[in-house]
Every structure is written in structure tokens, then in C-alpha cells.
């Protein structure tokens, strides 16, 4: 489920080249050097080629929710090194490093707010926190969100960006797939809208649970979405992967998602969907 985390990280390192402290950024898709302010004004989408940069959870919340309406849930939940896991580094130290490098305290932020005047609950992944990997805290926060959505009859939206399960929590990370999927059944029973927005990248255990269970599944343009990672697949089949494989457009063509929505249109699209699905 997490086999290809490695390629996601290497991709990140060699492709998302941001000129440090500079005024300019280089688009990893068209290689243009663009004025940073211009990219930011364009919601972190390349003004030349429409490439969607990866963005932080906070940034996404600002883009989607009405100003000042988002309030966070369960922000104090903390991961625990339950297996006393040590590879070349201790899990404890990886967590410490991730916390010090990030504004977010975990790989997902949950909460509620207003989208063009309509209330919605949301979980937003933070890819820069350990590759958005799902451990007990991510699973618990999402499950609590879904349960709250059911209790308060409030639509739930999940914005995914994750390399999959968090290996350092072993079987517990795997079981978060079961836990979250079971909680989605609660919303479905009550006809409460559940919408997922898959952003680059969404893979492994996150894709194979709540990401693909939306009543409506949206993806950002060109987002990598899959179960196994491209490198693992390449190593398994020993042949070249087709052009555009596992990109949002490929999933769209294969009937696996409902639509591809530009970042600029995501707020208005969600707002329309919420209206159309409201009970």
C-alpha cells in the first residue's frame, strides 16, 4: 500500500523546484520561470501551462472556505510510536522532525466552515507531513469527522494528498482503511453527501479506502492517483508505462472519477454540488 512512497519523494525533490527565498519559481511542468507573486495570485497554478502546484492544507482551506469561517477539530491528537519502530531513523524522531518542519501537527487537518455560505465539514491532507501518510491519528481524525457529519447531518468533503499508509505504525495504519470506510457507511445510510477531491498525489491505502468512496469524486488536473505507485508497477511488469498513466485524465477516461476541476473552480463546484445534493 505504501510501496511507492519512495518515488513520490524523489519526484518531489527533483521536480518541484522552488527557488529558495527568491521572487521566482520554476514550473515543473513547462519549465518556465515565473514571478512567484503571479503564481500565488493564480492559486498556485502555473499561469503559463495550468500546472497545479502542490499546496499546503492551510492554503487549500483558504482557497475553499469563506474567509475566517474554518474552525479546526481534534488538533491536539498526536501520533504515538506504538511499535517502537526504528529503521535508519526512529519513528519518534521522524515525527519530531515533521512537526518542526510543518505548521500542521499531523498529516491531515479536519474541521468545519462555510463554502459560499453553506456549511461543510472537511479533512484536508498535508502532504509535506510525512508524505501525507495515514497512521492512527489521520484515521481517527477522519473517522471522528465522519461521525460528527452524521450526527450533525452535515456534508463532508475530504481533500486527499497521500503516499498511503504510514508503515511505522504497522498493522494499525492498515486498519485505518477499515475504520474510515466503515464510518463512510454511516453517512451513506443517512444520505449525507460525502465528496472527495483527489489532489496530487493520492495513492495506496488512502486511495483504496475513503478517497474512492465519494458520492462524487473530483480530481485536480494531472493529479497522480492510484493504488500501487508507478515505480512498483514498472518493476513488476518490466515494461514502459503508458503516457499519462495514473493521471487524473487517465482515471477520468477509465470511468473511475466524476470530474476534473481546476483549482480556480473548485469552490464554486463544491458549492453547486452541495446545493444539488442537499436534503
Amino acid at each position, binding site marked *: *500500500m*505504501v*510501496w511507492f512512497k519512495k518515488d513520490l519523494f524523489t519526484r518531489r525533490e527533483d521536480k518541484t523546484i522552488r527557488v529558495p527565498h527568491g521572487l521566482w519559481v520554476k514550473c515543473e511542468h513547462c519549465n518556465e520561470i515565473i514571478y512567484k507573486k503571479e503564481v500565488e495570485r493564480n492559486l498556485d497554478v502555473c499561469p503559463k501551462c495550468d500546472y497545479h502546484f502542490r499546496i499546503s492544507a492551510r492554503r487549500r482551506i483558504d482557497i475553499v472556505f469563506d474567509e475566517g469561517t474554518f474552525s479546526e477539530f*481534534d488538533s*491536539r*491528537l*498526536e*501520533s*504515538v510510536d*506504538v*511499535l517502537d519502530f526504528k*529503521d*535508519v531513523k526512529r519513528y519518534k524522531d521522524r515525527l519530531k522532525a515533521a512537526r518542526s518542519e510543518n505548521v500542521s501537527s499531523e498529516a491531515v487537518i479536519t474541521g468545519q466552515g462555510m463554502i459560499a455560505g453553506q456549511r461543510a465539514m472537511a479533512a484536508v491532507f498535508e502532504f509535506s507531513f510525512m508524505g501525507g501518510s495515514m*497512521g*492512527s491519528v489521520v*484515521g*481517527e481524525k477522519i*473517522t471522528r469527522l465522519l461521525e460528527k457529519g452524521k450526527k450533525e447531518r452535515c456534508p463532508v468533503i475530504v481533500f486527499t494528498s497521500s503516499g498511503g*499508509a504510514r*508503515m*511505522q*505504525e*504497522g*498493522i*494499525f*495504519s*492498515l*486498519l485505518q*482503511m*477499515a*475504520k474510515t*470506510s*466503515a*464510518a*463512510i*457507511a454511516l453517512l*451513506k445510510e443517512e444520505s449525507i453527501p460525502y465528496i472527495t477531491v483527489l489532489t496530487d498525489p493520492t495513492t*495506496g*491505502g488512502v*486511495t*483504496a*479506502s475513503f*478517497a*474512492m*468512496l465519494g458520492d462524487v469524486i473530483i480530481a485536480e488536473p494531472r493529479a497522480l492517483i*492510484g*493504488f*500501487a505507485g508507478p515505480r*512498483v*508497477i514498472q518493476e*513488476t*511488469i518490466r515494461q514502459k*508505462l*503508458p503516457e499519462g*498513466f*495514473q493521471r487524473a485524465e*487517465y482515471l477520468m477516461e*477509465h*470511468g*473511475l472519477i466524476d470530474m476534473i476541476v481546476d483549482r480556480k473552480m473548485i469552490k464554486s463546484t463544491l458549492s453547486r454540488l452541495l446545493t444539488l445534493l442537499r436534503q
Partner: protein
Amino acid sequence: MTFKHSRDFEKPIEDIERRIEELRHYSSTGSPVRREDIEKLERKAKKLISDIYSSLTPWQITLVARHPQRPYTLDYISHVFDDFIELHGDRVFRDDPAIVGGLAKLDGRPVVIIGQQKGRNTKERCLRNYGMPHPEGYRKALRLMELAGRFKRPLITLIDTPGAAPDIEAEERGQSEAIARNLLFMSQLKAPIVSAVIGEGGSGGALALGLGDRVMMFEYSTYSVISPEGCAAILWKDGTKADVAAKTLKMTAPDLLRLRVIDKIIKEPLGGAHRDPHAAARNLKAAINEALSEISDVPADMLVQARYSRYRKFGVFKEP
């Protein structure tokens, strides 16, 4: 029986087993072999197996779980159940031989069985895709789960897979969606579910059949979020560290019982299920019957609720 693909730690056992067989052969051809000599060797073999198998490392257990002579789903189906009728196909795309399932009787009680199926020889392994299902396999399983719910039949799942197939076809037909849908459906299924890991419990591809009311593991089976090799390659950046990864991941039956993720360890015959598949099947049958006796009279709604609570509580975190 000889074990061609056996693992290093089994070498001394195999040597003795070979000698015993040779002596037996001589004796059957009329050569003068003393009965005591055979018996002595047999005692020695037993002691050796018991010594070796009582101190297997997690990595060695992984190798036993993948033993090419280990009983697979269809072996257990034929030894544990009666009147098995295999059902095929997902009604959409094709029949996936990496998952088998159907209707059968367990001591007279009609049940639905589903399990991943590995192949025994090269041709079969290819046909069964090494027990790695495609989306249509999970969708066939879903169909059979629906059948279990509709006809109020207990669902028995046998888990034995390195993982769901990681290839182009699996991706283009929605591997993720197929697995996710099974998790969602199993969580709501109005029938008792008993799951047993019989060999490898590999990641989401295993869990997609494993969301049971009772979950058991054979003594030398494994259940993990990732294979030790995969984990070693990613975290240690060194695939040869699989033995360390196997230990670190806590993927053996005793580990998972200690973590309260499974309910029961099913004992294996001395030296592993592959040394005595019949004994392993008897133990599996007893364990399934015991689990069913605990849950088969529980009303469906309560069962679903209890199942929700079971999975709801998995996870360890701090909340200051």
C-alpha cells in the same frame, strides 16, 4: 514427501527426513533395516523440528507463510467444507482465478466462502497471478458477500495474498475502488463474518477480504501493511534488510494477538501446516466452528454494530 523449495533453516530437518525415507525404502525392499533405527531417527527429527520451529524469527515465519507446499485456500476448502460449489465471475469483466469462492456446508451449515488462491506450479502460479487479485476478483468477492447477506449465510474468508495486483490492468479497472468498496460493504454486511489468515496477509489486498467479526491467524502466517522486502527497500533503502523489517513491522500471529488486532492463533501441526495439511485443516475447522458458535446467533443489526466498534477502536494515539 520432499520439499524442493524449502528454506535454509529447514535443511537439517529435510536431511533427517530424507534419511528416514531412505531407510524405509530399504526396509520395504527387504533389506535388513532395524526398526529401532528408523524410530530413533524419527524421534530425532521430531525434536529437531520442534527446536527449530519454536524459535523461528519473524522473517523465517514469513518464509514458512510463503512455503510453496503450504496448503492454499482450495486445499482447505476441500478438507474443511462439504458440498462446495464454486461460483465464478464478477458479471462485468471476467473471472479472476486469484480469488475463489462459492457455497458450501460446514458441518451441515450452509456458508459462503471466499479466499485468495495461489498456484502450486509455474503454470498455476501464472494463472492465479501468485494470489494477487485484480479488481474483478474483489468484485466477484463482493458479489458473493452480497449473496451471504441476502441468504443470511455466514461468510468465511481465507486470506493468503502477497497483496493486490500492482499492474496497469489493475489500475485502469480501479483496484483502489474495488478494495474500498469491499471494506465499506463488509462493514455493513448483515451476516456473521469469520476471517482466517492462512498464509500471507499482504496489505490492502488482504484486508479487502478481512473485515471480519472474528479474525484469526495460523501460527506461522503473517499480516502486514507492507511486505518486509518493500518496507526495507523504502525505509532502509536496502531490500536485504527484510529480516530486520519483518521483526520491526510486528507482523506475526503472536505479535498481532498481543496488539489485540486478532482474536485467536490457530495452532499448526509440528513443523508447519505444510508438514501435515490434514491436521492444519482440522485445526482451522475447529477454530471456524468455535468463532461461529460465538456470533451466529447474534441478531444482524447487533452484529454490524459490534463490527463497527471493533474496527472503530483500532489505532493508538495521544490526546493531551
